[in-house]
């Protein structure tokens, strides 16, 4: 079942095209990894999928009744003020807001959900801490917990493990995989961690101004581009095993 479909999509800013001719579908249950070099337009693509940025041309549609408020999002960068007074709990809870529709207050189940995602990311002890006084990696985890609160259907993550320590990174991948397998959450993830995308992804989109590849992981491994892009990291992995 399709959730989002893109046809001949061109993305960019103020008529300055960053990437063009993107045609792909995001289907229910996918674990899609988007890879490509810096500046290839991955974050721009995420913003366009979320409607934060208008597509320059082409079609982008939400299918099968997917609604904007069923999406969870982790931005790569946020312009949150350095002096913003907000507790960790308040930030995570704000992720539950989109499911509220027009009801103004949070329900018991929202609070439970918030607690669960804080537990999941090891934030329970920091619950009452001030967001601005956390380390970069801790802030990243708070924003991740917020993204988890926001969705049961589609999770869009822009470099979720950037700035996380190795232990949390491993846990993070395990958790995203569990969400994808057990709770049937569709995952779209931008990452530079190629070995992880090989390990977990079911589909891969390689962006570089033009889409170089879209398809399943196995197919990608058989292409020249795939072998070239992954070559380096495969070699490293090989070294590690020796």
């Amino acid at each position, binding site marked *: 079942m399709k959730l989002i479909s893109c046809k001949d999509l061109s993305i960019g800013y103020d008529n300055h095209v960053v990437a063009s001719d993107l045609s792909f579908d995001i289907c229910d249950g996918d674990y899609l990894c988007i890879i490509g070099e810096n500046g290839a337009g991955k974050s721009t693509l995420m913003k366009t999928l*979320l409607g934060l940025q208008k597509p320059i041309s082409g079609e982008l549609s939400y299918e099968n009744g997917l609604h904007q408020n069923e999406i969870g999002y982790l931005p790569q960068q946020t312009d949150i*003020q350095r*002096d913003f*007074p907000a507790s960790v709990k308040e*930030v995570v809870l704000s992720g539950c807001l989109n499911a509220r529709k027009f009801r*103004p207050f949070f329900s018991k189940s929202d609070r439970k959900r918030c607690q669960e995602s804080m537990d999941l990311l090891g934030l329970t002890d920091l619950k009452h801490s001030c967001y601005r006084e956390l380390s970069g990696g801790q802030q990243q985890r708070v924003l991740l917990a917020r993204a988890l609160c926001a969705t049961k259907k589609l999770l869009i993550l822009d470099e979720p493990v950037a700035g996380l320590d190795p232990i949390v990174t491993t846990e993070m991948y395990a958790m995203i995989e569990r969400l994808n397998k057990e709770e049937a959450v569709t995952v779209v993830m931008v990452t530079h961690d190629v070995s992880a995308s090989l390990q977990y992804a079911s589909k891969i989109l390689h962006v570089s101004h033009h889409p170089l590849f879209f398809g399943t992981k196995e197919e990608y491994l058989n292409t020249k581009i795939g072998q070239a892009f992954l070559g380096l990291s495969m070699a490293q992995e090989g070294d590690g095993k020796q």
Partner: protein
Amino acid sequence: MTISYFLQQLYVQRALIVSVLVALCAALLGVSLVLRRYSLIGDGLSHVTFGTMAVAAVLGVTEMYISMPVTVGASILLLRGSTKSKLKGDAAIALISVSSLAIAYLLFSKFPTGNVSADVCKTLFGSSSIMTLRPEDVKTSVIFTAFVLLFFVFFYNRIFAITFDEPFARATGCHTTVYNILLAAITGIVIVLSMKMVGALLITALIVFPALSAMRVFKSFRTVTICSSITSVIGAGAGVFFSLLTGLPVGSSIVAADLLIFLLFLLISVICSLIGRTTQK
């Protein structure tokens, strides 16, 4: 003359009610405005109001009819889609603010209506007209405050989400434009209402002081919102009484009271961090 004597006077009661309510609204808005780096919006918009007052004086119409719609319009223009417009927030505020100030002064000088310098001084620093309020004025501000309070209670969580991270709120399906326009409209109305109280140059104080004071000591959005409302109410009340007892201007007294509260909170935060440091050792 004692405080209890003053409290029995009808005009004092009215002045007190209106100042406290307007200060409360300004403080509630202030938290969100300060955090979104719009601290100077009050300054800009009040100059617009000042300009419309000059126009109204020249045309000989009731001030409210012109100043309310124009100020609210300017507010929506400045606060609405600041991400998209080519002129960035602070530059746009500066532009609108000085232009209206200049036009107002030109109009006042070209068509003198009474004593120009007294008029200008009154609208810039507030006048004693707060002591001559009519019952309708009180009614208006009570109804308006009730509306603002309801808005903040019902949309508190959304206001937090939009203030904290607007792109995320928009990406996850919150109608941020609607809330931004509503907040902007309320801001415009609060500015027009507080012109009577503190005057064009001092309005910024009502908006920023309570939020800044609260942010010295408190670290969550909820506590900051509650604390800034309380300090703002106390500051307005204290200012009105001080002005009654000494005969000094109301607006400046309220701002001075807010400043004192701010310094007090600054002191508390310094002491807290000192205590924190010693207990850590």
